[in-house]
């Protein structure tokens, strides 16, 4: 659904911006892993595509609020960073398929890189409600880009932090630290969100340990609602066939081992409908 929300608060969290928006309809339907798309630039803007942002937090205040955490990348996120309390924001959501949750009280490692960590907190809440043990592994390029370390420490059994420059926690990337975290916590499952490269490495580790991994991917999106076909990645289906599936509608959450990370940005030759079939020259 589409909601004109009102910005309640804005804050800086280290390198990130956080916006809390009153959006009752979206908050009510939200499940961990959902994202929203935000119109940027105001009424007569030249920016015609919405920006996809995951929801970090949902609260019941004022009928329901959602919190978005983002980094400034280009003009759209720069505009968002300038929003102030009482400004209005046009949101569509909740979108995408949320994280599936285990039936049994298992041990879960939640792996987040950069702002990808934001989506893991509602996941952690939902897992803990089911009696799961939750451990966090969060990373970023530098200390100010590791999101949510404090909150993770308060919630989780253990929290491991990594930075590429060594300014906080272990030096390196989250995937480097993951084997020992899985071993120490005897994890049964991994939940991950971050750049594609991180998800690829995290998935490889989970496969090594033979435990399931759920990843939330990020791919350039024009619509977020499944109509434009611009956000596709190669994913292996239940029947073993690879299809170019929409990250917005079939995802953004996928089973990691089903995503052909090495082939993202290509059409694998064995994908359904890949060039070589009958109509390869059309359009």
């Amino acid at each position, binding site marked *: 659904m589409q909601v004109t929300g009102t910005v309640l608060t804005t804050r800086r969290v280290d390198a990130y911006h956080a916006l809390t928006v009153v959006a009752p309809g979206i908050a009510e339907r939200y499940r961990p892993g959902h994202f929203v798309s935000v119109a940027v630039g105001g009424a007569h803007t030249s920016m015609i595509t919405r920006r996809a942002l995951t929801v970090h937090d949902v609260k019941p205040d004022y009928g329901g609020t959602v919190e978005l955490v983002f980094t400034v990348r280009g003009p759209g996120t720069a505009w968002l960073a300038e929003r102030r309390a009482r400004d209005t924001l046009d949101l569509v959501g909740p979108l995408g398929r949320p994280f599936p949750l285990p039936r049994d009280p298992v041990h879960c490692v939640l792996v987040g890189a950069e702002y990808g960590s934001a989506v893991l907190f509602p996941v952690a809440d939902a897992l803990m409600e089911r009696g799961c043990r939750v451990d966090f592994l969060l990373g970023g390029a530098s200390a100010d880009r590791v999101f949510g370390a404090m909150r993770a420490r308060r919630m989780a059994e253990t929290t491991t932090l990594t930075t590429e420059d060594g300014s906080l926690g272990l030096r390196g990337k989250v995937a480097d630290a993951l084997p020992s975290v899985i071993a120490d916590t005897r994890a049964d499952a991994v939940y991950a969100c971050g750049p594609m490269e991180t998800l690829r490495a995290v998935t490889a580790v989970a496969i090594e340990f033979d435990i399931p991994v759920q990843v939330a991917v990020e791919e350039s999106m024009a619509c977020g609602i499944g109509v434009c*076909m611009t956000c596709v990645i190669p994913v292996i289906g239940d029947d073993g066939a690879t299809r170019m599936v929409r990250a917005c509608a079939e995802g953004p959450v996928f089973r990691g081992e089903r995503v052909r990370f090495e082939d993202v940005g290509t059409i694998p030759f064995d994908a359904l409908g890949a060039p070589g079939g009958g109509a390869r*020259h059309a359009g």
Partner: protein
Amino acid sequence: MAVDMRTFLAHVELANPITTAAGCAASGRELAQFFDLHRLGALATRSITMAPRAGRPTPRMAETPSGMLNAVGLQGPGIDAFLERELPWLAQRGIRTIVSIGGGTVAEYSELARRLADAPGVTALEVNLSCPNIEDRGRVFAREGSAAAEVIASVRSIMRYDVPVVAKLAPDVADIVAVARACVDAGADALSMINNPLGMAIDTEALRPSLAAVTGGLSGPAVLPIAVRCVWQVHAALPGVPLIGVGGVMTGADAFQLILAGACAVGVGTALFHDPYACLRIERELEDLLQTRGFQRLADAVGLAHRPPGSAPRHLLVDSEESSP
């Protein structure tokens, strides 16, 4: 008094002139989550091809000033899956459906028409001519009046007489009127314009083209003036031919421009990416505009901007008594 928004695509009546643009509403189900598809004048499908197509590599889209580039490459399920799953879903609900087809040869277009000829639920057939012709060094059918005409003549001879065949034209051609005329002479019952003009963007950080396919189709408000120009020129030359105006329509006023230029229906594409309810909003805005300008019927506005200079401006009814609500 409410404005009579009915319009005709050849002999087929649509309850209102607003349709989705081909390739911008996926299978229909996606938009149905937001609103009742019966409220559309018609839903246009993506361009259906013979075989399933995986499309182009990503990135497939880049935002550009007041527009975007796309290089989806007609990703879709192929005609078998379309006839099995997508068309019946629309037909069972009685949703007016313009089925778009795309092919690489005349034979392929013809085969698609044959497969669709007896399928229930095809309100009109739109032929996407912006596809490269395999048999002519990949030259796009729409760029060549004779190639476009060959496709249209074949498809027209196969489709049932009561299903209008619509030729969808590309704007980046030397003479769009010549292509339009060739299609009409070949039997097209209506024309749709414009498909995406070709564009390109370069990522100044990566120092490479922004799209994996290098070039892509430009859409959104940036192309509206091109669409208005094309509709204007073709309506001037072929005033009796029904036109679907497509390209950059974001508001009722944009749709009104295309109608005044000569379109009797209006397709909405990229606007849907921004606003899933765009078609309904645009329809409402258009109706309001017509009403405040004193029109009782949409049909009276079609092509009105062509009236000769110096002719009296249309007398508005706004201050006459009969128009007071």
